Structure formats: structure tokens, C-alpha cells
């Protein structure tokens, strides 16, 4: 169960990361920061208003807005400059965000309680489940289903899928890619922010909380295939299960198992499970 919940959280990051990398060709290391900011936003809103549901609305909105501003003001200028400049810029952002939350919230660790009605556990077939685990799983499944429908059936999904293979041609057909990029970046940030809000009652909230999730999300992107929602879904499930299996049985090797799995998939399918391009 823990593995599935973890897979759900990783998916919320990996989906945005994959589409941003696939379509915009931006490797955004600050994507984990969006998750961390989402969790802090949840803490801030819950400690002031007591409403988790308000946090579930405001957190992703705020983080999405931050993402939009980052794309418009800075990332936009770096598309021609290649990956190194983008990696440096986004890594710089991770440091800035960590320092910002440290100066506002201090270095200590916070936690929030699950919203009323979602606390407590129940038993099915001899196994223990918390209601909140089921909630996280439900949210990520819902988001996954919605993304898949949008990706496959909506016009915006078609534009993004087209952009993964040939951006220039998309522009030549009269589509404003600049606008598409800003919205994609903001939406990906909002999804990671949502992941952070949803994770807040489940994990400890601290400035480095995104480390593991970001690494796993990056592995999912590579394993699932760049710019593929299907890949992000399947990859998250695989990685989430492998990671929690590893933590349970082979504590010291849990990350190693994840990378071994990635290596094995890449040997068999160099583009990842659902990759369109390498």
C-alpha cells in the first residue's frame, strides 16, 4: 500500500516534469521545489485557517503562478542556450527556494494532520490502511485519468504531443508556442504543488523534503519516456513499488534497486517505455 501511495505522489511530479522536458526541452531541477513549496503552502494555510480543503485549492494555484512567472521572466530566455544553462538556472532556483522557506518558516520540521474525516485507519483482509493513504491514491488516480484523457483526446494534448517531436512545425501551423510553454510550465508546477499539498499530512515538512521524490520522478521520466503521460503513469507505478519493496526488504539498497530497474528498462528500450524520441 505504501508503495502505491508513494507512486501516486511521484506521478504528480513526474507527469509535469516529463511533459516540460519532452515538449520544452527544459530539464527543470526546481520541479522538486514546487512540491516542497506546495507542502509549505499547505502548512501555512492550515495553520492559519484550519482548512485543508482551502490549502488544496490555494497551494497548486500559488505554485502554478510562481511557475508561470519563472517561465516568462527567466526560462524563456534560455531555450536557445542548451541544457547546461537551464540546469544551472533551475538548480539556482532550488537553492533560492530552500533559503526562502528557511527564512520564513525556520529550519524545523512541521507536520499537519489529515483533514477531518480522513484520519484513522481501517482493516481489509488483514492489512492496515489509513484513510489518508486511500485519499492520496484517489487524488493521483483522478489526476492521472484526467491527464490521460486530456493528453489523448483534447486539442491541447495533441499540440503537446506534436511539440514533443517537432516544435518548429507546430509554430509553422500558426500555434503560439510561447503561450503553450508558459501554460505547460505553470500547469506542471501546479501539479507538483498539488503533490506537495496532498503529501503534507503524510510526510514531514522540511526544506529538503523533495530530494528523494525529485530523484525518483527523474528516474520515472527517463524510464517512462520523455514527454509521455502514459510513461509517467506506468513508470511511477513501477518505481513506487520497487522503491517501497526495497525499503521494506533491503533497506540499504532501495535506491540502488530503482536505478537497476531503470538501467534494465533502458537496455531493452532506450527511449523508455512509451518514448517517442530519445
Amino acid at each position, binding site marked *: 500500500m505504501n508503495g502505491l501511495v508513494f507512486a501516486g505522489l511521484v506521478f504528480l511530479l513526474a507527469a509535469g516534469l516529463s511533459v516540460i522536458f519532452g515538449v520544452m526541452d527544459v530539464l527543470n531541477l526546481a520541479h522538486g521545489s514546487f512540491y516542497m513549496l506546495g507542502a509549505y503552502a499547505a502548512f501555512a494555510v492550515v495553520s492559519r485557517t484550519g482548512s485543508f480543503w482551502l490549502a488544496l485549492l490555494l497551494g497548486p494555484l500559488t505554485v502554478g503562478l510562481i511557475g508561470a512567472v519563472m517561465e516568462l521572466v527567466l526560462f524563456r530566455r534560455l531555450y536557445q542556450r542548451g541544457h547546461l544553462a537551464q540546469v544551472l538556472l533551475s538548480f539556482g532556483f532550488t537553492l533560492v527556494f530552500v533559503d526562502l522557506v528557511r527564512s520564513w518558516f525556520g529550519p524545523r520540521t512541521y507536520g499537519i494532520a489529515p483533514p477531518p474525516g480522513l484520519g484513522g485507519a481501517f482493516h481489509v483482509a488483514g492489512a492496515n490502511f489509513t484513510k489518508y493513504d486511500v485519499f492520496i491514491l484517489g487524488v493521483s488516480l483522478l489526476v492521472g485519468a484526467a491527464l490521460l484523457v486530456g493528453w489523448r483526446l483534447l*486539442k491541447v494534448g*495533441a*499540440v503537446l*504531443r*506534436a511539440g*514533443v*517531436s*517537432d516544435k*518548429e*512545425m*507546430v*509554430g*509553422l*501551423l*500558426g*500555434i*503560439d*508556442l*510561447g503561450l503553450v510553454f508558459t501554460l505547460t510550465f505553470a500547469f506542471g508546477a501546479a501539479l507538483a504543488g498539488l503533490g506537495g499539498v496532498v503529501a503534507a499530512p503524510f510526510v514531514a515538512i522540511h526544506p529538503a523534503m523533495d530530494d528523494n521524490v525529485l530523484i525518483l520522478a527523474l528516474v520515472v521520466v527517463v524510464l517512462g519516456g520523455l514527454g509521455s503521460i502514459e510513461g509517467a503513469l506506468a513508470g511511477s507505478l513501477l518505481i513506487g513499488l520497487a522503491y517501497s519493496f526495497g525499503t521494506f526488504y533491503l533497506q540499504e539498497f532501495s535506491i540502488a534497486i530503482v536505478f537497476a530497474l531503470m538501467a534494465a528498462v533502458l537496455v531493452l528500450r532506450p527511449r523508455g517505455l512509451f518514448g*517517442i524520441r530519445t
Partner: protein
Amino acid sequence: MQGLTAGYGGPAVIRNIDLRVGTGEAVALLGRNGAGKTTTLLSVAGALPIRSGAVALDGRPATGLPSFRVARLGLSLVPQGRRIFPALSVDENLTLGARRGAALSTVQELFPVLAERARVFGSNLSGGEQQMLAIGRALMTQPRLLLMDEPSEGLAPQVVQQIGELVGRLRREGDLSILIAEQNLALALAVADRVYVLERGEIVHEGTAAAFGEDRALQRRYLGV
């Protein structure tokens, strides 16, 4: 376009190109491999930066605009190599750039095979089908000027002939202007009213298609045929 100069970062690939396509006219851009035909079309379409010179469409300036703005002014490109989106179905490829008033049925009537294969992914089409899809995709943006870059490349003679007939039909049915870059002289002369010849990035000849078609010496000199 007037005095157009453009390139890819290094020295200019095309220099001082003066070229005009009248409303409803079909013009062929001829020249050997590497003469600058593709560069000319891409820079007109806004996909390559223009160093100097001016481009206008229906009297409206298009110089230096991003490609999506040029497309919205009414210019559409059928690119070299077709550049079909592999992860999109035929229908999705067609509707991606569709402008208001464009009907899928119009294109499907021109190319019945595109209706038959509506749900097939772009990656699973034959070369001829891809070329028809690329033309259909461009027409869905309701262009005033259609640029075609080597539409005959890699296709069987029958399909090339089909494309020639189609261009003729498009011209008869509306006031669409066409600029076609071709190595296939027969196709170019069959569809065009006038021709320009590019050599090493410059226009070296301009005249009617009929005159160029009769002047073997000229053809040999510029195209080596």
C-alpha cells in the same frame, strides 16, 4: 519579398532575393541541391531569422514575425520531408492548425485516403499518404499563399503526377497562390506560371514557365538537365 538575406548563423545562405507571387499565381523556385530553396521558404515562413530585406503578404508586413504570426497572416508551408507528427492520428494532424471555417470534409474530398486512414497514427503512413497529409494539414490553416518544399521528393511517379493534378485543381477552385520549390522540373513546369532559378543563394534567372520549358540551354546551364 525584397532583398531577402538569411542563413543559419554562419555566412548568409541566401542573398538579396527578390521574388513575387501574384494572387492566384503559381511560381516555381528551381535550383540544384543546396542552392538555397529550403532556406528561402523557411525564412519567408518565419522559421529562420531574416538578416535584411522585407517580406509582405497581401501588402501586410511579415518581416521578422515569429512563424505562428506569419501563419496567421495566411501563409502555410508543406515542408521538405513532410514532417508529419508521428504521435498524432491523421485527423489530429489535420485539425492541429485548423482555422475557423476549415472543414475536414473538404480535405478528405481532395484526398479520400485521408478519410479512410483517419485514426491511423502519422508514423504508420506511406510516403505518398504522408505527403497528402502534409498538404491537407497546410490547407486546413486556410492559407492565401501555399509554400511547397520538394513535394515530389522520394515519391513514386504516379503519386507525383497525382500531386501535380491536385495543385492544378487547387488553383482552379480558388485564388490560392502557390510557391513551389522543386528539383523535379517536369512537375514544376506543369504547375507553375513563372519560374525563378536560384544558384548559390542568388536569383540568376526569372521568366515564364513556358519559356523556360522550351529553352534547353538554360535548363542545362542552371540545373544540369
